[in-house]
């Protein structure tokens, strides 16, 4: 009987479950839409004619994709794009390499003073960026690296945090693997490059994502270092675009959309590494 028509009691339980399921989805969807509202406004405003940006009506009366082209006409936006990607890519590459090498020395090799040096590295993690920023600026002035790619790339290419992150990761790789390679007569470089690096790949990818993210959006350092327009990165270019052409909200929103598109792509392809990275970063040594 109950197989054909559920009793009221079964229905109650079913409805309760169903109801909670729908309620949870409703709450989540409402929250998500609220969170996404600023993004939505940005995208819609970027397609509007200027006079409609200030209107409450969310949809443009005419869609103007040419706003996006106009950004490239008014400012060297492609140049900013290139600068940001170029600097971030180099910093990421160098930081991963130098951090991995140091992490190898800290995690796989035994040498006198290792723990002292490592504690020194850890200790500097809490130093606020503003403390080192002023001396580093003075250093760049003396090395004549103001207003140059080298000045943007080199100081950012060494990271105590990256070293720490990769060391934690390499410690989880079983020592029997490199011991076996050492018995086979492999050099340290071979062990590092052919055994440890492939196994540390998830950690490296995590570090690469965070480094790229941080340097793509880096603001303070390029702001004080870069004077010429040709070397401006996206955040700096955006800042001056907003200050100098502040009234063209639709174009500024188009530029903002283009600014965050690479991030959204990176986000979609790298999600699973992100969570792991945040957790690794939270584990104190």
């Amino acid at each position, binding site marked *: 009987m109950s197989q054909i028509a559920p009793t009221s009691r079964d229905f109650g339980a079913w409805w309760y479950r169903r109801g909670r399921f729908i309620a949870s989805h409703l709450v989540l969807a409402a929250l998500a839409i609220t*969170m996404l509202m600023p993004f939505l406004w940005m995208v819609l405003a970027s397609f509007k004619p200027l006079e409609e940006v200030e209107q409450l009506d969310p949809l443009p009366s005419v869609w103007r994709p040419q706003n996006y082209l106009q950004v490239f006409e008014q400012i060297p936006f492609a140049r900013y794009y290139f600068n940001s990607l170029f600097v971030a890519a180099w910093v990421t590459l160098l930081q991963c390499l130098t951090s991995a090498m140091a992490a190898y020395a800290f995690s796989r*090799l035994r040498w006198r003073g290792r723990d002292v040096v490592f504690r020194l590295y850890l200790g500097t993690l809490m130093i606020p960026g503003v403390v080192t920023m002023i001396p580093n600026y003075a250093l760049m002035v003396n090395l004549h690296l103001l207003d140059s790619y080298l000045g943007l790339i080199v100081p950012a290419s060494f990271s105590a945090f990256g070293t720490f992150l990769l060391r934690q990761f390499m410690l989880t790789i079983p020592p029997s693997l490199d011991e076996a390679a050492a018995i086979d007569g492999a050099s340290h470089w071979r062990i590092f490059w052919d055994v440890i690096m492939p196994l540390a790949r998830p950690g490296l990818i995590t570090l690469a994502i965070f480094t790229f993210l941080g340097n793509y959006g880096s603001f303070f350092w390029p702001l004080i270092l870069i004077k010429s327009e040709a070397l401006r990165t996206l955040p700096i270019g955006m800042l001056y675009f907003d200050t100098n052409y502040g009234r063209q909200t639709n174009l500024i929103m188009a530029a903002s959309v283009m600014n965050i598109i690479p991030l959204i792509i990176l986000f979609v392809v790298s999600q699973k590494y992100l969570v792991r990275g945040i957790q690794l970063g939270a584990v104190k040594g």
Partner: protein
Amino acid sequence: MRPRARHREFVPAMGFLLPNFLGFVVFTLGPVVFSLGVSLSNWNLQRTIPFQWIGLENFLALLGSAEFWLYFVNTGYLMLGMPVAIAGSLALALLLSLRLRGIVAYRTLFYLPTFTSGVALMILWKALYNPSFGPINAAIEWLTGWHGPEWLLSTCNLLGLDVEQVGLTLKQWGLGARDALIIMGVWTAIGGNSMLLYLAALTNIPLELYEASQIDGAGRWQTFWSVTWPQLAPTTFFIVVMSFIGGLQGGFDQARVMTAGGPAGTTTTLAYYIYTKAFQEFQIGYASAVSWVLFIMIFVITLINWRFGSRELNY
């Protein structure tokens, strides 16, 4: 390890360490020592005054200046968003730990503001907050008929902090620039890293604890306070400490992009103060002293963390 092996590994270890260590010394360790030295001098980048060692004069000057304390209070005020963001992250994590179809998509959406945060989004919020043309005030006016607060142009705040001096006054009570920055900050952070940390911590709470709690006849709310909250304590402690450290150094990007530290200096945080002193007024010595005061505050919090924080979060 046998001494021979230790000796054998010393030379290659130095080889592997060297590139990173050089960078570390040149761009971190050296600058820290240099900065401490500079903070004891009157170094001015414009060379208008002769260089001199002046001992602790910078520190005494800044501790006695009204400016410094106003900006210190501003920094603290902006950190009031922290508890809201942390509580929100926890609530969101509880919601997002439900086993629902499509939950991963929601997690992704909520993380988006953190991942894309930066100058572009600050420029977006500046447009959103525009008191006469922005959509926030347009929506407020449409809903209530009131034209809405002046947001980034207003020195008002929800505590009623005075503008010229440290203190409270009823005249300044309202919604203003600092509150606008707090709202933006909460929006950026709520679904971000703290939420992910809470989510990971939630999945690690042993289910037996919940079963035991159920047998004891505890309700949902009771179970949260007697099981979930204590189990999450190490995560909460870590998040609070990290938020404090971040908050003390924070506010620079917002001030530079959105408000120029104004109106009337109300969104100038210590980080922005250091920037203006060093790179607009070229008082490198004084700016370095401020940065060291900030460093000392962060150091104290780190000590508290080492003393009371658990050595490791359980994952």
